C-alpha cells in the first residue's frame, strides 16, 4: 500500500465525452490538474459544466475518454477504499439502520465490532444523528440522509474524500456547523479533500485552494490558493469573511464563473 503522503492526485490531458444517441457530447475538455496530499480543493462552476464527471473519473466509476487519472502514481482502475465518495444524491442502504450504514465500511474491512461501533458513534455524534441511529434512512429527511452519508464516508477514514455538493440540500445552520466540522477533520487528519459546490462563498471559505470550471465542455479557468490564516492560528469565520482578500477572491471566483472565456 502506498503511503498516505504519496497519494498525489494527477489528471493528465483528461478529456471526456458521453455518447448520447450516437453523438459524442463533450463534458470535460482538457483537464491538467495536480492535487497535493492534504489539500482541501474546492471546485465551483456553472451547473452542467462537468464537475461531477471529473469527480466520478477520480472515484473510478468511469474511465476518461482520453488522458489519465492517477492517484499516488498509479492509474485509477476502479473505486477504492482510499477514495471515499459523498454523492450528490444520498446513497444509503434502506435495509440497514442509520448506524449500520455508517458502520458498513469498517465492517467490510474486517474491523472488530467494538471498534467500528465506537467509530460510528463518533461520526454519528458529529453529524448530529446519534438519536436517529436505529432509524432506517427512508425515515430521515433529505438533509439528515446527506449527513448520514457523510458520516458513513468519514467513518471509513479514506485518504481522499470526494464530495459532490454535499451541503447543497442542508439548511443554513446545519451547513455552517458541518462546514466547520469538516474543516476540523481536515486540519486534524490531513486528508485530501475534493469538494464540489455551487456556492462561491462555500468554495472560498472551505478551500485551501479554489478551482473554477468553465461551462461545458469543462476546463479549469481559475486556480487560486485560498488560505486566510497562517498555519495553526484559528480565525473566527466571520472575521475571515470580512477580510479584504477574502472578498476579493470571492469576486474573482464569481467573475470567472460568469465569464466563460476567462483566462486562468
Amino acid at each position, binding site marked *: 500500500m502506498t503511503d498516505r503522503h504519496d497519494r498525489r492526485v494527477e489528471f493528465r490531458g483528461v478529456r471526456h465525452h458521453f455518447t448520447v444517441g450516437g453523438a459524442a457530447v463533450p463534458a470535460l475538455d482538457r483537464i491538467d490538474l495536480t492535487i497535493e496530499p492534504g489539500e482541501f480543493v474546492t471546485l465551483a462552476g456553472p451547473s452542467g459544466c462537468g464537475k461531477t464527471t471529473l469527480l466520478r473519473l477520480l*472515484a*473510478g*466509476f468511469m474511465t476518461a475518454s482520453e488522458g489519465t487519472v492517477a492517484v499516488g502514481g498509479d492509474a485509477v482502475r*476502479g*473505486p*477504492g*477504499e482510499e*477514495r*471515499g*465518495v459523498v*454523492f450528490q*444524491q444520498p*446513497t*444509503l*442502504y*434502506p*435495509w440497514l439502520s442509520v448506524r449500520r450504514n455508517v458502520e*458498513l*465500511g469498517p465492517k*467490510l*474491512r474486517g474491523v472488530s465490532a467494538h471498534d467500528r461501533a465506537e467509530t460510528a458513534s463518533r461520526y454519528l455524534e458529529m453529524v448530529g444523528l446519534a438519536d436517529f441511529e436505529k432509524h*432506517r*434512512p*427512508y425515515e430521515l429527511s433529505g438533509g439528515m440522509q446527506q449527513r448520514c452519508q457523510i458520516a*458513513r*464516508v468519514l467513518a*471509513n477514514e*479514506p485518504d481522499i474524500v470526494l464530495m459532490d455538493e454535499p451541503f447543497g440540500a442542508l439548511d443554513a445552520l446545519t451547513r455552517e456547523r458541518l462546514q466547520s466540522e469538516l474543516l476540523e477533520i481536515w486540519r486534524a487528519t490531513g486528508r485530501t479533500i475534493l469538494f464540489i459546490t455551487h456556492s462561491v462563498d462555500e468554495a472560498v471559505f472551505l478551500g485551501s485552494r479554489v478551482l473554477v470550471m468553465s461551462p461545458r465542455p469543462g476546463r479549469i479557468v481559475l486556480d487560486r490558493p485560498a488560505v486566510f490564516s497562517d498555519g495553526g492560528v484559528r480565525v473566527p469565520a466571520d472575521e475571515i469573511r470580512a477580510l479584504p482578500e477574502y472578498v476579493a477572491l470571492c469576486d474573482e471566483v464569481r467573475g470567472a464563473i460568469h465569464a466563460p472565456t476567462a483566462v486562468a
Partner: protein
Amino acid sequence: MTQTVAAPAPEVAPSTPAAGPQDHRRERRRHRLKLLALHASTLLLLLSAWWFVTAMEWVSPLYLPPPGDVWDAFVRANTDHPVAAGSDRIVRGEQGYYLWEHLIASLQRIAIGVGAAIVVGIPLGLVMGTTWLGVVLEPYLNFLRSLPPLAYIGLLIVWFGIGDTSKVWLLFLAAFPPIAMATISGVHGVRQDQVNAVRSLGASRRQVLTAVVLPASTPDILTGIRVATGFAWTTVVAAEIANGIPGIGGLAYLAGNQLQTALVIACIVVIGIAAILLDLGLKSLEKVLVPWRGKA
C-alpha cells in the same frame, strides 16, 4: 336466509379533539370493519343464491349440490364415518386420509418443490444477473418457463417413477424459472450508485454481491417467490391427477370421477382458501423482510 345484513357500523363515541393519533387508529379500524362487513354480506348473498337455486331444484344436485351437502362432505372427509349409511365398517376421512391430511400432503410437496427452487433459483439468478452466463442461459430459462408443466410430467414420470419424486421435480421445475427471473430483474434494477458507493467503501466483488446486490434485489425475489408459489399450487393439483393420494388435487380428481360432486366442491373451496392464506402469509413476510419497499 335471504335477508341481507345491514352491516351495523359500530358508532364510535365522539372523542376529544386532542386525541390525534388515536382518532387516526379508530378511523382505520372503522374502515376495516366496513370492509369486513362488505365482504361478509357479499359472501352471504352468494351462498344464499346458491342455496336458493338448489332449493328450487332448478339444477340437478349431481351438477350443483346444495351448500348443506358440501358442508356434510367436508365434515365427513375430516372424520371417521361408516363407509355407507347403515354399515358397520368405519373408514377414515376420504381414501384413507382426512381432508386436512390431503391438504398437508399437497402443501408438503409445494414446500419441497418451491424450497428447492429458492435454493437453486436465487444463486442462479444472481450469477445470471451479474455475469455473461446470463446471456448464455437466458433463452433456456425462457424456454423452460414457457412450457406448461403438464407437458413434461409424462417425461418426469418415466425418469423418476409415479411416486412423489416426479411430482416434486415437476413443482421444482415450475417454481424455479419465476424465482430466477425475478432475481435477475432485481439484480438489473440495482442502482449503479449503490454499487459504486459500496465499492468506494472498499467492498470486494463478493462483498458487493452479499452486501448490496442481494439485499437490494430482495423485494423482487420475494415477489418471484409469491408468483412461483401460486404457480406451484395450480401445478400440484394437476400433478396429483396421476397417483395423487394423499393430495388435495388427487382427491378432487378422484371424487369427480366418482361423481361425488359435493366432495369436489369441498376440495375446491379448501384449495382456494389455502392458496389465499398462503399468499397472505407470504405478503406479510414481505412486509417484515422489506419494510422499505416503495419508500427508497
